[in-house]
């Protein structure tokens, strides 16, 4: 007797059945290359032999592994390996069957966990980013119109980045610009501003998914020992990233720029904003370019994807977090197919009104990304 996928009965926690009928916008979906060779058709032939010989080079010690081994192969749910082969997220049909169709997903915002931005060979990095975007367009966004890609760019080379953004400008398949977050400098620094200028002029948000390697220790207190620490520390890095964008004055210079912090959750936002406001009040002479309190930039220019949705002892505490940070700031995301992904039906263990659900699960994202 073969097991059938059973209908998921509503969990004991409050789970309004209206959620099942609501169309969702999933702001963090991870597609994947089936093989590194998938990019070769989009790369000049010199790179074919170069990659065979020299491969990719990043500021990491191993050719094909992390010094912090992850808790699951490919960081993914063990049931997300496609039956036809390839790593999790690499098979569009399986992604449709496991994610897009059953959860009634109207749009899925794609984030590829690979970039040329932290490639140490700059020409290779540039070529890789262009190839990724060509591949995403041909094999993903054109094949399933629900999927929207991010323009992957070689952010350490701002002129090349601006060219790549302009190459896709106006193409509705691309909904944002993606930068690696562990960049060589904090992303608020001026060297990256030409990127923000181009993105803002085109109305494209910048999507900031935890990624990349810059050779700095994973914490400002040095290198931790365990993956259980590293997994949390990357979320702390995202907090510093938000602080950088605000304090460097990116949103002052580009008031229309929208930034989406992806995969860091959201419960940290209020305390970071309160802390920044308090210390800005006594150090504001250092940053005269800021014309508003830091918390106001958090509320005006930054959005946060929901995953991982935290699980306090009292689920209602999440409501308090959202009241403080703003219900319009939250963008629902599954983070499919990662092991720590959130189920749309069960991630939030507190009751939301229908209006709140529509905001969090769809309308905030529709507004940020300008989706129909």
């Amino acid at each position, binding site marked *: 007797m073969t097991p059938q996928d059973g209908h998921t009965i509503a969990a004991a926690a409050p789970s309004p059945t209206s959620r099942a009928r609501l169309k969702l916008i999933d702001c963090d979906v991870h597609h994947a290359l089936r093989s590194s060779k998938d990019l070769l058709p989009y790369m000049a032939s010199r790179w074919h032999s170069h990659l065979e010989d020299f491969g990719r080079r990043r500021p990491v010690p191993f050719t094909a592994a992390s010094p912090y081994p992850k*808790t699951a192969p490919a960081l993914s749910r063990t049931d997300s390996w496609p039956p036809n082969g390839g790593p999790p997220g690499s098979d569009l049909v399986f992604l449709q069957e496991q994610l897009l169709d059953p959860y009634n997903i109207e749009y899925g915002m794609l984030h590829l966990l690979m970039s040329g931005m932290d490639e140490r060979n700059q020409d290779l990095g540039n070529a890789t980013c262009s190839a990724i975007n060509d591949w995403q367009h041909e094999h993903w966004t054109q094949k399933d119109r629900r999927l929207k890609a991010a323009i992957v760019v070689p952010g350490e080379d701002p002129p090349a980045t601006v060219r790549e953004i302009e190459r896709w400008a106006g193409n509705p398949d691309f909904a944002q610009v993606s930068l690696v977050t562990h960049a060589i400098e904090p992303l608020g620094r001026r060297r990256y501003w030409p990127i923000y200028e181009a993105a803002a002029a085109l109305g494209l948000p910048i999507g900031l998914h935890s990624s990349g390697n810059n050779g700095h220790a994973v914490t400002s207190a040095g290198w*931790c020992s365990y993956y259980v620490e590293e997994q949390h520390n990357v979320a702390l890095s995202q907090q*510093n990233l938000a602080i*950088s964008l605000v304090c460097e004055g990116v949103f002052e210079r580009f008031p229309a720029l929208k930034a989406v912090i992806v995969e860091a959750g959201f419960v940290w936002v209020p*305390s970071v904003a309160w802390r920044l406001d308090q210390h800005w009040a006594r150090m504001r002479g250092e940053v005269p370019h800021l014309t508003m309190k830091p918390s106001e930039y958090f509320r005006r220019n930054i959005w946060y994807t929901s995953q991982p949705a935290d699980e306090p002892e009292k689920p209602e505490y999440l409501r308090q*977090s959202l009241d403080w940070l703003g219900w319009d700031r939250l963008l629902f995301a599954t983070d499919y197919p990662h092991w720590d992904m959130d189920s749309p039906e069960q991630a939030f263990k507190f009751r939301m009104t229908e209006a709140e659900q529509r905001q969090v699960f769809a309308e905030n994202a529709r507004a940020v990304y300008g989706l129909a």
Partner: protein
Amino acid sequence: MNTALPGGIDCDVHPALPGMSALMPYLDPYWQEQVTVRGIDGLDLASFPPQMEANGRRDWRESGAKPGTSLERLQRDALDGFGSRLAICNPLYGVLAIYNEHFAAALARAINDWITAEWLDREPRLRASITVAAQNAELAVDEIERRAGDARYVQVLLLAQDEAPLGNRRYWPIYAAAERHGLSIGVHAGSTFRHATTSNGWPSYHLEDYAAHAQAFQSNLLSLVHEGAFHKFPALKFVLIESGFTWLPAFMWRANKTWRGVRAEVPWVDRPPGDLIRDHVRFTLQPTDSPPTGADMERLLEQIGRDDMLLFSTDYPHWQFDGQNVWPAGFSDALKRRVLLDNPRNAYPRLKEALQ
């Protein structure tokens, strides 16, 4: 000043060295000559530049002098000013950031001798942290042993951003010595600059560096929990100083959630990280990083879930509040009393002796 509240224990004041010249009497001849001949000075921490108004409240400064250098001002502004019955001195000077371990250890010893002679011996309400060169755990333990007999030393002082996160085993001999002697471990905001002030690299502004102390403290809590420091040293209390605390609930939620999924990597962590932190870690009051309203703070305190975790502090002479407004909105009188006295007594076992 609210006269209805008892005088408390100020768990963070900063006596400041005017310069290396003040340490000369406490250095041996070899180091005196090294310092003189090589012109060594200027070891104020970049994390706390003394001239910055944030590090010396205007009405707490003597004109022309580095804030915190005057005992008489500290007595008047901090001790008398807040009716505190005791204050714990946390000297911030460059010991931990020096690469020459021997020099660092010599400086640490000199600083402790200077604190003893010119602060503790002159003002009976003062207590202190032991300055150590944690760069070399053996030398640090020597210094702890040297001071342990003086009951006025209640804590060993470290900085939050060092070479390795503070749960790392390289620090364990220091924790063992501290636990043996009933000393707590004080982790103060600040960096030895062994690493960039964020994992994303070097921000442009001091404001960002200062804000980033909060993330550094969180990285250290992850390390202390998951390296098993709380299991290895069950009697030891860690006090996070000038760290802020309003980030704590969100931090504990995430730490608990991650642990549940990855537990087998660190099987000695047999309780949720939040529970371990509640039992072993304390936080000084300043800066409060307060939410907008008192009601918000009450909710935040409820989320922290324990009323024994906060320790009264002024952070004198750093400018964290104006006038006497040391208390944020949302703290009941009952909580203030705990924060003023009971919590510091419990966080610092060696204080109990002194207060009896």
